[in-house]
């Protein structure tokens, strides 16, 4: 079946512009995660959605970052007034209900802020 998809695969934007990154999880997966992977660093947790519960936003680095998940499926990560330090690969992962805790990752969106 289809895996997790993310769009765009690459995004180049000018400093100060807003960007939206999209994640389509595996159908039926109830949990969705966003991570940031900077060069030479690990995966930095950003935000987590589980069903209809309030999202865990504890990893968002600043109020310029926000995310939504509509209808329990597609998610959009928005970065406002982008800064050069926002340049990174943004990864999305989804997870099915039932406690397997196995996350299925998308290919990522590479964001470059010039």
């Amino acid at each position, binding site marked *: 079946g289809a*895996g*997790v998809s993310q769009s765009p695969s690459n995004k180049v934007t000018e400093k100060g512009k807003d960007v939206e990154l999209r994640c389509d999880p595996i159908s039926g997966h109830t*949990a969705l*995660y966003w*991570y940031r992977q900077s060069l*030479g*660093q*690990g*995966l930095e*947790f950003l935000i*987590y959605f*589980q069903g209809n519960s309030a999202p*865990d936003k504890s990893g968002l680095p600043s109020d310029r970052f926000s995310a939504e998940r509509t209808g329990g499926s597609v998610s959009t990560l928005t970065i406002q007034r982008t800064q050069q330090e926002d340049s990174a690969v943004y*990864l999305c*992962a989804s997870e099915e209900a039932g*406690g397997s*805790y*196995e*996350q299925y*990752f*998308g*290919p*990522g969106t590479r964001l470059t802020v010039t």
Partner: protein
Amino acid sequence: AQSVTQPDIHITVSEGASLELRCNYSYGATPYLFWYVQSPGQGLQLLLKYFSGDTLVQGIKGFEAEFKRSQSSFNLRKPSVHWSDAAEYFCAVGGLDMRFGAGTRLTVKP
């Protein structure tokens, strides 16, 4: 709060040699532990996981890992490395609150 430490940023091994990648964790309860692999240009793929039971777990691609509670470790091993194993390896701990280590980059020499 839970955390994961992968002490080795980069490891180089010869093809056919054995491999051990280290992972230490901090977690308030019995941890769920994972190893993921990220091959160049590809997404992360689960290699193996530990929830409970036998502390030696087998994964895909010939990898195994051993949970040692006394050492708070979950090291990844492979008896004989193949060139295709060159990748970035991430250890992770947690369940719904998963946290990843910084990763270890594996280079395989011919």
